[in-house]
C-alpha cells in the first residue's frame, strides 16, 4: 500500500533506530508495563523480578510518595494515607462514589467542588494525581529497563469506561509525562495478544473481570483486523467486591461490629483476598483474625461452598452484560469460536464454572489472564510508534455507551448509539424554543436511559450570539466527534450566521489543561526553564515531522496533484518553517507550522482522497497481499 508511507516521515531520519514504546495496563488492584523486544512482547519487571506493580500509593508526611508493594504492605498500619483501588474514583464525583460502593477507606476533603480529593498527610490529592504516581513508577521502570526515554505509550482502559473516566486516565498519563499514543480498551488489548498468538479467526468473546471493573467484548477477527462488534460491562464490579463480600462474612462470623477502625477493615480485606486466592486450589481454608487493639481473636474455616454463596450473586451480575453484548452483536452462542478469560478475577474457579455454563463451552485460560492486557497494549504501541511499518494489524473499536444531549423536558436525545464504531462524527440540528432567543445551553450526556437525570452528565456549554429570530427559525448544528481513543469533542454552529462554539468535553471534576500544566510545572525542579524547553522541543519535533512529511509528499505527488503556483506557495511556507525551526522561539515555530499546514491542507486532502480511490479502484482485496 504505497500511500501509507506518508505516515512514516521520521523513518528516513533514523531508519534503523527502534523507538521505545510501551503498553501499560493501569489496573484497579495491579498495574503492569510491557514492551516489544526483538519482536517479542514481554512484561517489564522491577529489580526484584516482579512484573506486577500493586496499584497502591502511600503519601508520607515529608511529601515523599511510595508506590507498589511497599505501599501495599503499609496499608494496614497507615490506612488513611495509603490509597488503593483509585481507579474506582477516576472520572467520578463524590455522589457517584458514595452511591456505587460503600467501603471507601479514606477521607475526602471538603473542597466545595464535586471533584473528590483525598485527605492525606501530604495534602489533598485527586484520583488523577494518585494514578499518575502509579504511571510514573511504571514509566521509570520501563526507562530503566530499555535504557532511554520513551517515545510513547498505549494505556489501557476498561471498555465500559465512559468519557469522563477515559479523559481522567489520559490526564493522569499526561501528568506522569507520558506521550499517550492511544487509549486502548482492555478486552481489545487482550484480543490482540491472544489473536496474534493463536492466529485466530472468527467471532471471539473476551470476558474480562479485573479487580474493580468488568467488561465483555465480542470481536470478529479477520486477517489481522480486530473488529469489535459490541461491548458491555460494569465499571464498578470486580474481584475487589468478592473480597468485600468475604470480609463482611468474616465480620459477621467473628462478631465484629461494623464500626471499627480502618486498620482492622484493611486487615479483614487482606485476609479475605488471601482466602479467595487460596480457594483457587484448595477446597477450604482456615482464617485467623487477631487484633489486640480491638480485642478480637477469631479463627474459622471458609469453604468453597460458602464462598459460592457469597460471590454467586456478583458473578451473576456479569452474565447480564454478556447477554446484552451477544444481542447487540446480533449473534447467538453458536456463532462464537472462543471465549477468552482475562483479568486476575477469572482465576476464581467459580467464575470459570458459571462462564462455562453460560456460554456452553470451556473458556480459554491459557494466556496468563493478568499479563495479557499489557502484552496486547505493547504490541499496539510498537506498531503505532512506527517500528513495524508493514504491519497489517487494524483495531476497529466502538463506544460503549450512547452519547446524546438534553432536550425539552429533561429527555436525552441520543446522537450516537452505543456500539458505534469509532472514530465517528455525527451532526444534529436543533432550533430555538422562544422568539428572539439569542443563547442556547447544550448539555451533553452519556448513557442508555431516557431521562437526562439517569445519564452521566459530561459537560454543559452555551452558544451565544444567535441572531434574534422567531422561535424555530434558527438552525443550530451540533457536531459530536469521538476520536480513536473514545474521547468526545463537541462543536456547535448556528447555520444561518455561522456563530460557532466548540469545546473539548471536560467534566467539571476533571482537570483543565492549565491545571495539568500547573501540576507539571510543580513537579519539575526548574519549573520555568523546563516548561519552556519542553514546549520548544515539542514544537521542533512537530516541525521536523511536518517538514519531512511534506518534502516526501512533494517529491512523490507534488507535480501530479498540484499546479506550479500551488507548489510555489507550499514551498515558500516550507522554507519559512525550516528557517524558523533553527531559532528558539516555540511560539514562532508553532505559527510557521500552522501556516504551512494551512497552505498544504488541500494537498494532503487530495493525497488522502487519492489513496482511498486507489485502494478501491478496480482492485480486489487480495491484490493488496493481505
Amino acid at each position, binding site marked *: 500500500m504505497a500511500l501509507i508511507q506518508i505516515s512514516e516521515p521520521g523513518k528516513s531520519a533514523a531508519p534503523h533506530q527502534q523507538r521505545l514504546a510501551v503498553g501499560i495496563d493501569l489496573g484497579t488492584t495491579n498495574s503492569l508495563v510491557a514492551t516489544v523486544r526483538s519482536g517479542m512482547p514481554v512484561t517489564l519487571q522491577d529489580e526484584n523480578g516482579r512484573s506486577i506493580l500493586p496499584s497502591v500509593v502511600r503519601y508520607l508526611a515529608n511529601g515523599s510518595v511510595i508506590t507498589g508493594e511497599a505501599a501495599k504492605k503499609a496499608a494496614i498500619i497507615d490506612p488513611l494515607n495509603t490509597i488503593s483501588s483509585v481507579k474506582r474514583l477516576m472520572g467520578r464525583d463524590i455522589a457517584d462514589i458514595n452511591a456505587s460502593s460503600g467501603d471507601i477507606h479514606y477521607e475526602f476533603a471538603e473542597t466545595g467542588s464535586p471533584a473528590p480529593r483525598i485527605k492525606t498527610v501530604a495534602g489533598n490529592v485527586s484520583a488523577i494525581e494518585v494514578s499518575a504516581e502509579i504511571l510514573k513508577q511504571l514509566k521509570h521502570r520501563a526507562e530503566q529497563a530499555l535504557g532511554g526515554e520513551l517515545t510513547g505509550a498505549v494505556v489501557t482502559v476498561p471498555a465500559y469506561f465512559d468519557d469522563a473516566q477515559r479523559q481522567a486516565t489520559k490526564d493522569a498519563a499526561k501528568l506522569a509525562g507520558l506521550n499517550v499514543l492511544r487509549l486502548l480498551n482492555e478486552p481489545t488489548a487482550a484480543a490482540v495478544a491472544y489473536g496474534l498468538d493463536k492466529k485466530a479467526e472468527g467471532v471471539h468473546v473476551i470476558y474480562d473481570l479485573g479487580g474493580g471493573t468488568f467488561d465483555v467484548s465480542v470481536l470478529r477477527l479477520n486477517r489481522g483486523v480486530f473488529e469489535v462488534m459490541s461491548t458491555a460491562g460494569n465499571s464498578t464490579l470486580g474481584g475487589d467486591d468478592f473480597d468485600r463480600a468475604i470480609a463482611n462474612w468474616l465480620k459477621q462470623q467473628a462478631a465484629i461490629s461494623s464500626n471499627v477502625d480502618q486498620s482492622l477493615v484493611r486487615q479483614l480485606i487482606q485476609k479475605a483476598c488471601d482466602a479467595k486466592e487460596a480457594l483457587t486450589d484448595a477446597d477450604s481454608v482456615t482464617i485467623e483474625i487477631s487484633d489486640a487493639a480491638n480485642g478480637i481473636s477469631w479463627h474459622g474455616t471458609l469453604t468453597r461452598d460458602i464462598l459460592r454463596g457469597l460471590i454467586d450473586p456478583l458473578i451473576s451480575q456479569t452474565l447480564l452484560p454478556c447477554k446484552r453484548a451477544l444481542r447487540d452483536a446480533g449473534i447467538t452462542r453458536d456463532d462464537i469460536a472462543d471465549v477468552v478469560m482475562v483479568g486476575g478475577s477469572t482465576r476464581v474457579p467459580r467464575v470459570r464454572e458459571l462462564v462455562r455454563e453460560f456460554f456452553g463451552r470451556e473458556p480459554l485460560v491459557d494466556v496468563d489472564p493478568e499479563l495479557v492486557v499489557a502484552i496486547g497494549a505493547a504490541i499496539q504501541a510498537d506498531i503505532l510508534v*512506527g517500528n513495524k511499518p508493514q504491519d497489517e494489524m487494524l483495531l476497529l473499536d466502538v463506544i460503549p455507551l450512547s452519547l446524546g444531549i438534553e432536550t425539552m423536558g429533561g429527555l436525552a436525545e441520543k446522537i450516537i448509539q452505543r456500539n*458505534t464504531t469509532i*472514530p465517528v462524527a455525527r451532526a444534529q440540528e436543533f432550533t430555538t424554543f422562544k422568539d428572539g432567543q439569542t443563547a442556547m445551553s447544550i448539555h451533553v450526556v452519556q448513557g442508555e436511559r431516557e431521562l437526562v437525570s439517569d445519564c452521566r452528565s459530561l459537560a454543559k456549554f452555551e452558544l451565544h450570539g444567535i441572531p434574534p429570530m422567531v422561535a424555530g427559525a434558527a438552525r443550530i448544528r451540533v457536531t459530536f466527534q469521538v476520536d480513536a481513543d473514545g474521547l468526545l469533542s463537541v462543536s456547535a454552529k448556528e447555520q444561518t450566521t455561522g456563530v460557532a462554539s466548540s469545546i473539548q468535553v471536560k467534566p467539571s471534576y476533571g482537570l483543565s489543561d492549565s491545571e495539568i500544566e500547573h501540576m507539571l510545572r510543580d513537579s519539575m525542579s526548574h519549573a520555568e526553564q523546563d516548561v519552556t524547553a519542553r514546549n520548544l522541543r515539542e514544537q521542533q519535533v512537530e516541525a521536523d515531522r*511536518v517538514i519531512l512529511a511534506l518534502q516526501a509528499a512533494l517529491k512523490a505527488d507534488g507535480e501530479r496533484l498540484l499546479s506550479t503556483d500551488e507548489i510555489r506557495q507550499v514551498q515558500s511556507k516550507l522554507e519559512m518553517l525550516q528557517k524558523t525551526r533553527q531559532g528558539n522561539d516555540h511560539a514562532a515555530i508553532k505559527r510557521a*507550522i500552522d501556516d504551512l499546514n494551512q497552505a*498544504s491542507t488541500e494537498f494532503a486532502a487530495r493525497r488522502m482522497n487519492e489513496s*482511498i480511490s486507489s*485502494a478501491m479502484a478496480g482492485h480486489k482485496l487480495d491484490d493488496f497481499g493481505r
Partner: protein
Amino acid sequence: MATAGLTHNYFELFNLPADYDLDLTELSTRYRTLQATVHPDKFANATDLERRLSMQQSALINEAYQTLKNPLLRARYMLQLKGVDLSVESSVSMDSGFLMQQIRLREELEQVRSQKNPEAKLLVVAKEIEQAIAEQVVVLTGLFKEGNEKKLPQIADYVRRMQFMVKLQQETEALEEELIS
C-alpha cells in the same frame, strides 16, 4: 477541489454500484481495506494535519459503511440521493392491511409482560417483525431494480413501512433488555 471523500457518495467511496441489492460481504471486505488505508492508527506518527484528516476520513467511512450495511438506512440514503427526503415528509398514507398488522403487533408486544413465559412470546413477535422486514427488503430490491423515477413514491411508501417495522423492532429490543435485567 473539495475536501477528500466528500465529492463521493457512499457507493462511489466503496467503488460499488449504487444498487439496493448490495453484496454485503464485498462491502465489509472493502470497508476493512479502506480503514486499513485511512484509520488514525496508521497515522499515529504523522503530522497533526494528517492525523486530523485521517480521523475525518475514517469517521466518514464508518458512517458510509453503517449506512449501506443497514437495509433501512441504505434505502433512505438512496432516496436522498434521488432528492427524496423522508424526514421532512408529513402526509403518511398506509394501506389498511399494513395498519392492521401494526396494531396487532403492538398489542401483542404490550401483552408480552403479562404472559406466563414473556421471553418466549417476545421471541415469537420478534420473529414476525424480522420476517416482515425481510419481505420489505425483497419488495424494495425489486422496486429499486426497476430504476424508474415513477416508482419513487412507491419506494418511499415502502421505506416508511419499514421505518414503522424497525421502530417496532427497537421496542422489542428495549423490552428484551428489560426482561433480561
